[in-house]
């Protein structure tokens, strides 16, 4: 499977999940995604747990709002009906399953490329070279910023300006952390763009690296997965 094939499969599954309107249709699409995840031949529990970890709190919140407080489904409100809590529960189940499929599909696609570096993955995508360069630069700067966040946060906690827990002090002084991080990073970036990168020819080398990684054409397994995603989407509409 190629990265382009994985992206195409994920996009088709997500589109299918968005247009499927009942629980049965969504379950068919979920089954296709589960097959896709299993085909990676890696343990899929982490992907399932991550997706559930994102959707479960939302599901609880939705149950409180729709079933507990509102007590009827949106289509019942629109029709001016008295409505029922069971219809509200079904509405929550459909929304949550749809969200779960979206989260799980992204994780399932990751499973297929678990051993890849971001540079290798971005290089194998069919994208304009400027977009690839931007993605690589952003990923590199995210690392720089996150390190700056760690350092600044430790210093500000040590200085008693912010705390580890939720506090009013964090609300009052949180902007100092943001400003400290920005000043650290902007200084690093000015230094890199003015001196370091021109001397080391970093951008030209990055261009060369990305140009050398010509994205492969879609393979037979890619077409197989794309066909499955389309079939699941069509079946989900019935």
């Amino acid at each position, binding site marked *: 499977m190629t990265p382009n094939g994985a992206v195409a499969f994920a996009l088709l599954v997500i589109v299918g999940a968005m247009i499927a309107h009942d629980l049965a249709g969504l379950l068919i699409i979920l089954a296709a995604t589960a097959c896709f995840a299993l085909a990676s031949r890696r343990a899929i529990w982490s992907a399932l747990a991550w997706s559930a970890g994102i959707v479960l709190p939302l599901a609880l919140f939705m149950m409180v709002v729709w079933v507990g407080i509102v007590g009827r489904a949106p289509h019942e*409100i629109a029709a001016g009906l008295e409505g029922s809590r069971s219809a509200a529960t079904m509405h929550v189940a459909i*929304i949550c399953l749809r969200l779960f499929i979206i989260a799980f599909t992204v994780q399932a696609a990751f499973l297929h490329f678990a051993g890849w570096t971001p540079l290798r993955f971005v290089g194998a995508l069919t994208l304009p070279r400027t977009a690839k360069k*931007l993605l690589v630069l952003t990923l590199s700067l995210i690392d720089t910023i996150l390190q700056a966040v760690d350092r600044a946060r430790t210093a500000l906690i040590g200085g008693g300006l912010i705390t580890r827990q939720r506090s009013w002090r964090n609300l009052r002084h949180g902007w100092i952390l943001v400003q400290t991080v920005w000043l650290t990073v902007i200084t690093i970036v000015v230094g890199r763009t003015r001196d370091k990168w021109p001397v080391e020819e970093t951008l030209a080398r990055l261009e060369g690296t990305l140009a050398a990684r010509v994205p492969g054409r879609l393979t037979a397994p890619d077409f197989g997965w794309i066909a499955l995603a389309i079939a699941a989407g069509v079946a989900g509409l019935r």
Partner: protein
Amino acid sequence: MLTTPRLVAIALCAALNFAIGNIVYLIKLPIYLDSIGTILCALLIFPDRLAAIVCAFIAGFISAILTGLVLNPFLPWFSLTVLSIAAVSALLTARATYTFRMRPLPVVPFAGKVLLYGLITGVVSAVVSAPVVVYLFGGVTGSGSTFVVALFLKTGQQLLDSVVLAGLATDPVDKIAEVLLAALLYRATPREFIAMMAPAKPSTA
């Protein structure tokens, strides 16, 4: 339009959007602050308005995709909101760049412009986000504003109306905080970096 310094600014602002989500999580603030990089990108590239819109949108879009892959898979659905924030920032908020950098800080004009532009950004963002919130999340996103949605639904309002009204009640507060932080960061940015954002001049040789 996309000169190397501008590409670096886009990458930096996209990384900032991503990292501020991390900061908000670390210091447990009850707000999102996920568009500061988008607004800041527009301020940095102004007065070239078209480039400011395009670059700010790209910065916001890349951060939404990366955050979507790593932290929150539902964020890329708000790409149209990112575009609207980029447009408002480049066409309106960026008009205040002179005030934002003035020394000493003119407190009243600074605060007034931050409030006004933050409010407009919040209203536009609430209206543009509402259809996504309704269709993707069924009106409930897990944020505190959801209880406002529930309150409106309970009084018999339609779902889309409830989400728009709740967004109008809560988004401006978040966006005022974002415009304020973007203005403070813009104010702290070295002049040398802002000068690099000027469009490349054609060589006369």
